[in-house]
């Protein structure tokens, strides 16, 4: 039962990832892509937590944390570049 629900959760996360990826490819402008990228990273963090659960290893949570940190910095930097006051 728990295993089945875990698979269901993974599939939902995968579908969400594909939807966000579609928006990322589709654009139409830079800000849309960054928004899609932001959502993609958050979905990836969830995916990493799911992997940690399946593999039963707590180390993966550190990966998720560092990933969250770096992606947040990345988004902030790109957004500041896009939003430069003219």
């Amino acid at each position, binding site marked *: 039962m*728990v295993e089945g*629900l875990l698979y269901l959760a993974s599939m939902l996360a995968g579908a969400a990832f594909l939807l*966000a990826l579609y928006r990322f490819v589709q654009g139409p402008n830079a800000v849309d892509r960054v928004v899609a990228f932001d959502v993609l990273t958050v979905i990836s963090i969830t995916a990493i937590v799911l992997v940690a*659960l399946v593999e039963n290893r707590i180390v993966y*949570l550190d990966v998720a944390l560092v990933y969250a940190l770096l992606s947040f910095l990345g*988004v902030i930097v790109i957004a500041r570049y896009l*939003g430069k*006051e003219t």
Partner: protein
Amino acid sequence: METLLDLIGAGLLVLGTAFLFLGGLGLNRMPDVLNRIQVGTKATTLGTLLTLAGAGFLHPDWALKLLLVALFLLFTNPLSAQVLARAAHRSGHVKLSEDGIDHLAEDQGDKL
């Protein structure tokens, strides 16, 4: 060896990822940048929080670290959303409908 706690945890995982899915769907259905940011941030924030809570039910000994990830996301997600929204507005990608109200553009117009 399935306890009630495990079942609750797995249920939360599915609920959380369902919100992520809704977020992805909204990202494609919404017509303009700001609405996409709205759906993207809110759905993914709650989705991730629920998933982390579910993981906490399945592995109570991971709770502290999961809480740390949750706290971090709870603060950074809205922040990046705001910075992105500001970038979208400043770079002129925000187009509201004809009768849409935009106090920000009005006030900026005053200053120029």
